[in-house]
């Protein structure tokens, strides 16, 4: 009983952290990055952000939590879709896109583990950030293609999503690195 309560409590904390991080990066992307992007590249007509930080949250959550990243990210992803598309979040295409967004990265990491390439954190081996980046790139390709199919949008949008996801993952990790460094200094 205590164990069950403990794991529920842990899932609650994980959900609060992962979903808040996801939604916060969505806000940052659509309230700051996209307006800046529109100022710098006015001729770029796509709504896709060229720096999509939430993909970094998706990848790192799945790397840290495995399958638990699915329930942990779900409220944040639903809130993000509602924020961007309003009540359209209830459309079947949006629900499919939500499922794709939360399931693809954990699924990819588990499939890699099944074929003998275990990238999940372990005390017995050093973490491989380039492998995590690789997973981020592959899953971005999958998510962008599947989401495009679900939305029926222009294929060129998929390329913009891909660029945004990769840069979002890389710069998100870099930002975390410097955030930890600053926290370490002020501690």
């Amino acid at each position, binding site marked *: 009983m205590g164990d069950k309560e403990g794991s529920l409590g*842990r899932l609650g*904390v*994980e959900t609060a*952290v992962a979903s808040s991080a996801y939604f916060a990066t969505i806000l940052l992307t659509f309230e700051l990055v996209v307006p800046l992007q529109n100022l710098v590249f006015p001729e770029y007509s796509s709504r896709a952000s060229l720096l999509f930080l939430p993909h970094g949250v998706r990848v*790192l959550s799945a*790397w*840290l*939590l495995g399958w638990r990243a699915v329930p942990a990210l779900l409220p944040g992803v639903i809130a993000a879709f509602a924020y961007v598309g309003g009540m359209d979040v209830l459309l079947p295409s949006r629900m499919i896109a939500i499922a794709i967004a939360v399931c693809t990265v954990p699924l990819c990491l588990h499939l890699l583990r099944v074929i003998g390439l275990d990238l999940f*954190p372990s005390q017995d081996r*050093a*973490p*491989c*950030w*380039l492998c*995590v980046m690789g997973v981020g790139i592959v899953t971005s390709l999958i998510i962008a293609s599947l989401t495009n199919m679900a939305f029926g949008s222009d294929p060129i949008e998929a390329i913009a999503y891909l660029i945004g996801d990769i840069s979002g993952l890389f710069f998100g*990790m*870099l930002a*975390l*690195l410097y955030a*930890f*460094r600053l926290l*370490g200094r002020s501690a």
Partner: protein
Amino acid sequence: MQTLSKLAELRRLLHSMERTLGLQDLSPVERDIYYAASELSENDRRVRTVGLIEHALLETVSRPTFFRALKSLVNKGYLTQCSTMNRGCYLVRSSES
């Protein structure tokens, strides 16, 4: 505790990124001490100040600079003092750990 360990795992990942990209937050003397300590440390990752100060990389470094950099490496988490009461002993923390 679980949340803390996830945070530690995330930091390990970012440390590996930091090292690959050459973004380590170390001064030249700190880097030389860390390299020397990594080289001198045995399987148990322990290194002694006496051995470090005599290392070829650190021959030209003055004692005050050496000890300032050593203290800074401890503060940044690259070295930790041995858990025993032995003051001249440090544990080399791998940047992957």
